[in-house]
């Protein structure tokens, strides 16, 4: 019987946070599943699937010392399902252009209407303070085909956003 929880931890970034969190979990007998850690701005962020018999309150006790020492914010949710449910993306969408409000909203709304289920999304503001650019990368499953996504996003080109939709061909060998 597994007891999966989704842990979300954020805080000011510094070296060693992942090591401290995962060591505390390991020493308490917890097991990690899929995890994703990324630095957003100056912030450390991680989401991790943790299989823990202790349950939510037990997990909180396990992590309290680390959370206090590293001044993190911890959020825990019990989740359904476990491992081996990962869909294989068949489309990659790259978007970039001068930064302005609404790019992600427009791209993802149009793509969702064309059948896209996002598996992985990342965006960045780059360039300079005076002339910022926005870079968005999405991997997903295009249920209605890659061409449908391409057609749905094409009109955005006219608004000065560069959109590149590529099929992702996964080679199984």
């Amino acid at each position, binding site marked *: 019987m597994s007891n999966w929880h989704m842990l979300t931890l954020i805080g000011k970034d510094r070296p060693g946070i992942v090591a401290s969190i995962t060591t505390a979990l390991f020493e308490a007998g917890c097991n990690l599943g899929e995890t994703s850690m990324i630095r957003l701005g100056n912030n450390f962020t991680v989401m991790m699937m943790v299989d823990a018999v202790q349950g939510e309150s037990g997990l909180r006790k396990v992590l309290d010392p680390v959370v206090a020492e590293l001044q993190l914010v911890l959020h825990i949710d019990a989740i359904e399902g476990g491992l081996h449910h990962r869909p294989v993306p068949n489309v990659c969408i790259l978007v970039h252009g001068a930064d302005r409000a609404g790019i992600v909203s427009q791209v993802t709304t149009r793509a969702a209407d064309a059948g896209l289920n996002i598996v992985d999304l990342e965006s960045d503001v780059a360039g300079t303070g005076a002339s910022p650019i926005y870079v968005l990368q999405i991997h997903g499953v295009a249920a209605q085909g890659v061409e449908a996504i391409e057609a749905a996003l094409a009109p955005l080109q006219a608004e000065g956003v560069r959109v590149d939709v590529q099929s992702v061909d*996964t080679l199984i*060998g």
Partner: protein
Amino acid sequence: MAVLEILTYPDERLRQVSDPVEQFDATFQRRVDDLEETRLAGPGAVGIAAPQVGWFQRVVIVDVSGRKKTRNHGHLILVNPEITEWDGYAVGREGCLSVPDYTGNVIRAEKIHLSALDREGNALSFDMDGFEARAVQHEMDHIDGLLFLDRLVSRRQDLFQRKVYK
């Protein structure tokens, strides 16, 4: 003909370097047939290498002819294959019969020149590119004891490594 068991990671036997084929006898022919039948029994594999079924000789099968818009040389049984030239590189997503439930990005040469023997021992030579070249490189790794896991690149940092095909 028989569908053989596929060795899966972390089975140490997948790390073995395979030996060249020297005999093209009836036993060899039967093993090639079994290897192909095993490939076809799997979930959509465009290739298979002998070590994946515990046969440690330098034999790979590649067939990308069933894919849309993919340049190819048809169904290939490649014995003692050697890549003699490489050109360019591209990031692509790979999975493997020997690594269930995982896919990841791998950098491969975009174009290769390949020499090999066919199943009768006759010399073959190909210039290939794109998906077919990727499949051959993936399968040839197996006969040197390598898996695509050994070549994974970041799924997040590939924006400027991608090659755009238009």
